[in-house]
């Protein structure tokens, strides 16, 4: 059978980087092909070539065995290729119908939009593929998972046969991700062909029919999910054996470092988002806060780091009241903060790596003397940290915006962990990072804990919480509904609590798995 899509010898050269090096790829009709690779491996470049955003330097693209030229997304859509981008291309104030129609308007009486006809087609599509949406809802009112469905409907509305999903689960909760997989399965059963770009091993094994691994611009391997496991895939991706299980020794916890007492935080609309939370973190202990995103974790961290003033309650760091302190005081008291949104909060993107590495300390000796910045010292510090933390950058003066996501995060980790600290607050420290970087960052956090630092870890990745934490607190709708030593709970139980099931009920459940079982 002729494959629906074939790429032959695709090569794309960027200044100084060979992003794609003679890549061959074949996609059969009705197949879900997972394209696995680290960030910066060249997956997205390849897909952008397929979608007409880049032109390859060499190679050819065949659809149904016929060679075609794709010079723009319009060509790609004509050829039946559609892409669900990581960041949705939707207009929030338009309805679902209007968003789907955009660029493909069906008209009646000459120039008037025929919304009814479009809405009807959308309903047809949503029934055929089991994509539940209300065509008249405004996109801004929809949860992220449903917005993604709208993106998929947009493609089906344009009669795409080949659907490319670029890291589709990055923005989803575990439940939403599971729903997406069901949708993808339905699509493939209906004859659509899917390329699924990801670096998450669990997802690949759960959904793919076939797996291709890309590393440093080269296709390094192809396998079937039944012949692979997490470790073998990770090794293919990174090019060396990777230990996915975190090695962590038992450790006695020491004295109290951070104490949160009956804390209440309101958001800007005066909704209570942190609801009478109390939590202690001790020396040499990692306390993981599990929870689906948006349950108050962000605001809790903001309150503890001084970015948001709490309404009620008390926060103490090493016996000192920091409830109303500003961020600099808290930092100087020995606290480090790896922020949730690294690009918005943690870095000044156009600034060089060296300046970002002293973002919280440049006003102090030795980085400035009096008023004058000591760039010699700042550079020395940068070169040291680049080496110690294995930050991949051309040099210390490169703007941090030029670095990959993993290396940007390493810049923050290096800056925060290289200071003498008693408390580390790490919020989503590995979100969107590749396997190699995750492994590295996990090791660093464990090392800090072993040195006696108290760690408050916030993550919506349940695996991460389970692997790193000594104690697990579950946050749901602003409250901490459970606080257990890690060894007393299973992943399934924590998953249930994240969904709001009370601990006593969750602990009664032993067998029933919430998430897809590991193969």
């Amino acid at each position: 059978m002729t494959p629906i899509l074939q790429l032959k010898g695709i090569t794309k050269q960027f200044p100084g980087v060979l992003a794609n090096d003679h890549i061959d790829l074949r996609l059969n009709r009705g197949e879900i092909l997972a394209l696995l690779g680290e960030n910066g491996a060249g997956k997205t470049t390849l897909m952008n070539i397929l979608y007409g955003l880049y032109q390859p330097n060499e190679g050819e693209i065949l659809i149904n065995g016929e060679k075609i030229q794709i010079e723009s997304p319009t060509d790609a859509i004509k050829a039946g290729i559609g892409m669900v981008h990581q960041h949705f291309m939707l207009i929030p104030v338009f309805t679902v119908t209007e968003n789907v129609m955009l660029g493909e308007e069906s008209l009646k009486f000459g120039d008037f939009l025929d919304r009814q006809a479009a809405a009807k087609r959308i309903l047809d599509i949503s029934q055929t593929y089991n994509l539940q949406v209300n065509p008249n809802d405004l996109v801004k009112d929809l949860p992220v998972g449903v917005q993604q469905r709208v993106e998929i409907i947009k493609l089906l509305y344009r009669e795409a046969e080949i659907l490319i999903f670029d890291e589709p689960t990055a923005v989803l909760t575990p439940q939403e991700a599971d729903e997406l997989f069901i949708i993808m399965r339905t699509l493939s059963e209906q004859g659509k062909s899917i390329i699924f770009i990801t670096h998450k091993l669990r997802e690949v094994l759960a959904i793919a029919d076939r797996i291709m691994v890309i590393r440093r611009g080269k296709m390094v391997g192809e396998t079937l999910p039944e012949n692979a496991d997490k470790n073998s895939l990770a090794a293919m991706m990174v090019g060396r054996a990777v230990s996915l299980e975190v090695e962590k020794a038992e450790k006695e916890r020491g004295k109290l470092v951070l104490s949160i007492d009956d804390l209440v935080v309101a958001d800007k609309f005066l909704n209570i988002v942190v609801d009478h939370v109390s939590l202690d973190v001790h020396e040499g202990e990692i306390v993981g806060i599990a929870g689906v995103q948006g349950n108050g974790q962000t605001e809790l961290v903001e309150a503890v780091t001084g970015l948001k003033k709490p309404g009620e309650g008390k926060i103490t760091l090493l016996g000192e009241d920091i409830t109303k302190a500003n961020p600099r005081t808290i930092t100087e008291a020995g606290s480090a903060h790896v922020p949730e949104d690294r690009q918005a909060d943690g870095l000044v993107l156009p600034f060089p790596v060296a300046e970002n590495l002293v973002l919280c300390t440049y006003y102090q000796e030795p980085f400035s003397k009096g008023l004058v910045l000591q760039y010699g010292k700042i550079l020395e510090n940068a070169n040291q940290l680049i080496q110690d933390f294995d930050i991949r950058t051309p040099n210390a003066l490169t703007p941090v915006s030029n670095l990959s996501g993993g290396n940007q995060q390493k810049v923050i980790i290096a800056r925060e962990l290289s200071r003498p600290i008693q408390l580390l607050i790490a919020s989503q420290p590995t979100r969107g990072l590749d396997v190699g970087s995750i492994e590295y960052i996990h090791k660093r956090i464990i090392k800090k804990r072993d040195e006696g630092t108290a760690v408050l870890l916030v993550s919506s990745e349940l695996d991460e919480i389970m692997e790193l934490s000594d104690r697990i607190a579950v946050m749901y709708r602003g409250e901490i509904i459970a606080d257990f030593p890690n060894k007393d709970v299973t992943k399934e139980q924590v998953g249930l609590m994240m969904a709001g099931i009370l601990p006593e009920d969750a602990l009664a459940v032993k067998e029933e798995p919430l998430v897809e079982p590991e193969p």
Partner: protein
Amino acid sequence: MSKNNEEKQDPGKVLLEEINEPQKRRIWGVISVPLLAILTGVIIGAILIAATSTAVYDAFGESFFKGIGTAFSEIFVAYRSMFTGSIGDPVRIINAFSSGDAREIRSALNPFLESLVQATPYIFAGLAVALGFRAGLFNIGVEGQLFIGAACATYVGYAITGLPGIIHMPLAFIAGGLGGALWGFIPGFLKATTGGHEVINTIMMNYIAFRLTEWLLSGPMSRPGSGGMPISPIIEESAQVPQFFQTPIRFHLGFFIALGFAWLVWYLLFKTKWGLNLRTVGTNPRAAKYAGLSVVKNTMLAMALSGGLAGLAGAVQILAINRSMALGLSSGYGFDSIALALIGNNHPLGVVLSSILFGTLRNGATRMMVVARIPIDIVDVLQAIILMLVAAPAIIRTIYRLKQPKQEETTVFVSGWGGG
């Protein structure tokens, strides 16, 4: 931007700012658009000169080739007079140097020196805008701050008597800076504490400044016996910024003071922690907050500093050139300076270069008007075209088929325009 030749041994010097990686390609990427915009502006200006000349139309009436010939000679005369008016007549300069007559050398070079005189207030005002942009603030109030600065400098200049020049002149100068700083601080304060947008508030502060100085000049600061004309007394000689040569050469110390301030602003922005504070707040306020900086304090500081520089622009015009204050003090320095800062990529060196360009154009335009009878307005049009081309780099990139720069280059270019 000349730093790419700098020795590698002093890494601090290489790191003079984030856009200034030691790569020639990058530097070309930064300066190519302004340079090509100027070239394009000159070409379009030439077409306008030909198109607005009645002589050219008359010649076309006779024959096509005569028309073309006349058009080219009109353009040639216009640009030649502009060149000799703003740079000098090369033949005269060479003759002057070979004759060795110091007086003759000076007057041969005067057109160029006069261009520098014209550039001086532009430098101060351009620095004011650039500093604001670097801190993420769009100071449109430079014109008003300039008027207030000028009024303060004037007052100190005539009201205080009996001081030696070494004290009086700096004092008047500083007064101008403080006046402008106050006028900039107010919208900065409003922005920091209430969130009132600085674009609106600085524009409003301009109106207040214009009317306030008008009232001052016709009331409390009016010149005795001026008959109600809004003009101030003449400042004391001790407050005057010295001119180097006899009239009509107006070249004065203020130009070098301006260069000094350009260096100072560069040093402040790129070498001190206050400067890094300002740039961090200006580039990413959320990260600034995360790093423990006070966005409120830095916003106020940046607006005060920006206003202070604007005030100095007014002060230097009064103390070095006008010697008394009247309402026609500024020919739109405050507004041109926004454009200047943009052309200069919000970098002090860029501001100095683009100020000299503006000064030269302004100065040459006067001569062009006299010799070639080309209306001075054509220079306004020329400037406007150059600015539009700089502000919309896509036009230049399309005309000259330049490659699109990488993302961070464009973001650097427009940093500060976010306003919010």
